[in-house]
């Protein structure tokens, strides 16, 4: 049996990298004393896996990981014991037990929802005003940094839908994005591109991943935990 876990990685932890987060979760799991399944071999470890890594600097509101556990563990107990040992800025929001036959979370990832917030400086206003124009483009090619160097990449097709709202204290952009053959959208790259398009200098902002998406039976993208 595996536990499918939805957790929040708060603002204070947005700079913690993927491997560091993995180690933190393993240490937390060890502290709970729950019957976790370890790998076999010389160096037994918890075979914890995340649905998709979160970029450093991005806050995760509904992140997903799975942990192999013994059958006797209940979802409630798992969440309670984990939250007791995890810091406030890293808490489990919900979890459910799935059978071993359930596909690996990683294989289900079909997209992600992002939220970008920024303040109403002159530069920020300029970026917000150009949002519609930017969304109306049919392509936007920019350089994407990958392991093999900088490659040109059209970032427009990743974005299925988006909106920009104005509130008293700033702007909020919501993006509904899909995973494509060449991977997933880097939201920071998208925002930099918007700023570049708008011709504005650096705009201080925060990026949240609000959901990791999977394909539902009717083909639409829904939060993976709702499958």
């Amino acid at each position, binding site marked *: 049996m595996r536990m499918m876990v939805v957790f929040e990685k708060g603002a204070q*932890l947005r700079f913690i990298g993927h491997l560091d987060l993995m180690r933190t979760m*393993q240490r937390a*799991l*060890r*502290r709970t004393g729950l019957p976790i399944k370890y790998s076999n071999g010389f160096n037994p470890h918890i075979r914890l896996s995340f649905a998709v890594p979160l970029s450093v600097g991005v806050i995760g509101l509904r992140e997903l990981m799975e942990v192999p556990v013994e059958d006797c563990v209940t979802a409630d107990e798992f969440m309670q014991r984990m939250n007791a040992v995890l810091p406030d800025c890293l808490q489990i929001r919900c979890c459910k037990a799935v059978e071993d036959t359930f596909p690996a979370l990683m294989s289900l990832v079909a997209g992600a929802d992002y939220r970008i917030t920024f303040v109403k400086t002159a530069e920020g206003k300029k970026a917000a005003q150009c949002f519609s124009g930017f969304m109306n483009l049919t392509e936007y090619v920019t350089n994407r940094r990958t392991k093999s160097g900088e490659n040109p990449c059209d970032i427009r097709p990743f974005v299925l839908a988006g909106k920009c709202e104005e509130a008293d204290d700033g702007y909020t952009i919501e993006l509904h994005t899909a995973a494509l053959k060449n991977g997933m959208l880097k939201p920071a790259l998208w925002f930099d591109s918007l700023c570049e398009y708008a011709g504005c200098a650096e705009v*201080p902002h925060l990026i949240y991943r609000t959901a990791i998406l999977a394909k539902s039976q009717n083909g639409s993208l829904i939060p993976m935990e709702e499958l």
Partner: protein
Amino acid sequence: MCYDFDALLNSVEKPARYTGSEMNAQVKPFASADVTFAFCFPDTYEVAMSHLGMKILYGILNDLPYAVCERVCMPWVDMLSKMKEQNVPLCSLESRTPLKEFDIVGFTLQYEMSYTNILEMLHLGSIPVKAAQRSENDPIVVAGGPCAFNPEPLHQFIDAFMIGDGEDVIVELTDIIRDCRKNGISRRECLKKLASLRGVYVPSLYHDEYNEDGTLKSITPVEDNIPQRVLKCIVTDFENAYVPTHPPVPYVQVVFDRIMLEIMRGCTRGCRFCQAGMLYRPVRERSVDRLVEVARESVENTGYEEISLSSLSSSDYSCISQLAEKLSEELKDKRVSLSLPSLRVDKFVQDTLTHTQKVKKSSLTFAPEAGTQRLRDVINKNVTEEDLSNTLTNAFSNGWNAVKLYFMTGLPTETDEDLLGIAEMAKLAANAYYSVPKQQRVKGLRVTCSASVFVPKPFTPFQWCAQDRPEEVLRKQHMVKDAFRPLKSAAFHYHDSGVSQMEACFAVGDRRLSNVLYRAWELGCLLDGWTEQFHYDLWKQAFDDCGLSIDFYAHRVRDLDEVLPWDHIDAGISKSFLKREYEKALRAETTRDCREGCNGCGLQKLKGVCSGCE
């Protein structure tokens, strides 16, 4: 709150070391605390979080219901320049409170080359760098740790030093400062009260005089009621002393990212170059039962996957085999691995661990320190070639194929023959490897020898000795390097002579060096312990600008009757013992391990402190 702090994090290396919020970090209400303590580590987060002392004192202070203790580390250069550019003050990790808003700012002194960082951290924290310029509202700046045993080079910057084991005195000091602040008692009066505590040295209450030849004439209290000599603090009930079983667990990988189980404090071997071996006397052990209990608690509270034993010489712990056995019994179901000291890779430990533990086969390390038996006798390092050969043969037949050997160059009485002996030791290790039948050993032997440069340290029998001049250090290093050339599977590394020279100056320096330190900091010296940040030319200029001679401090043999800058500090060991040991060293005579019988180091005068000498 530090407003603009977050904005800086997007553009610096490893931002996660500035954000805190770790498991077990103590975030207590700051505003309602009676007294607040900023525990400052004058190096980066990765080094700070590897330090056991900080975990102990952080735990002790935060266990006081009326106190708050938060951590502050030295930012890396990229962060430093951003902070200066944007005028962002240095803040604590927990509540992001600027340094100057704390009642007490405390530094731990682990290494002389971190001294400039102290000045920088004070400055970044908007606290006047010089103690004399601090006002009534500024924090009291204190310091402790091994380097506090010669506090003089820092006397201009630190209000009060704590000498010796910090567990008890840090609470006494915090309480006095709390009371003084509450009752509006002046800074000067508060410092006088602190000076009355055992183990507390307030440099502004002492006055220094010099002879015509530049040597120290005296350091004396400026008022009555101030002690002539400051006696170090000693934790006598080590068994029940505080153990940090719920320390903050860092997210990012730090230097020592594991549970460090302090099995004993002090060392009985009496190596004559070793300052820790002298300062941490007497030797005190914790019982196996207590250690198993705190190990269990630590694993439960941290989730760490590894425990290592911490002490100056873990293989000397009297029940090491029993401890290894009981700990592995306790840990095997929890899948926590145990690292054992290299010297004990013997048959017994092997058998205990084979089925239960992952024994790291990469970390076999020995410190013969010198290349010949004669020189090892001089420094009283009682390791023989036979010991080493046997231990290594044993290890090589049990699956190890890499060994690290540590040496020092420039030890008193050293000759070229002693230096060439370092290469002989590497050959000895190789021979031990090849003596194991081919099918029993693991392929690919690696022998790595590293040599540091001897630095004379206060309260050691070698405190009167001179360090080799840089050109001599280089000649010796190159000679050894050449001797390694024909050795196929062995490598030789050595330390920078410039850093070691500065280390020597500040280790044995007097009050006048605080001007050099200040000047070096003004010139931009920072993070000098990091090779790429060390600028020898700037340090040299700082000495020149202050009209002081590096030679006088680092390369001069001191007269046995000379007044030393730390003579007013009482480390428990007597000067006559150190002199005796120095003279024996020059005759290459060894001194027995003091567990085999008291050598009269001076601790016997403190009643009930050392069990060995009663």
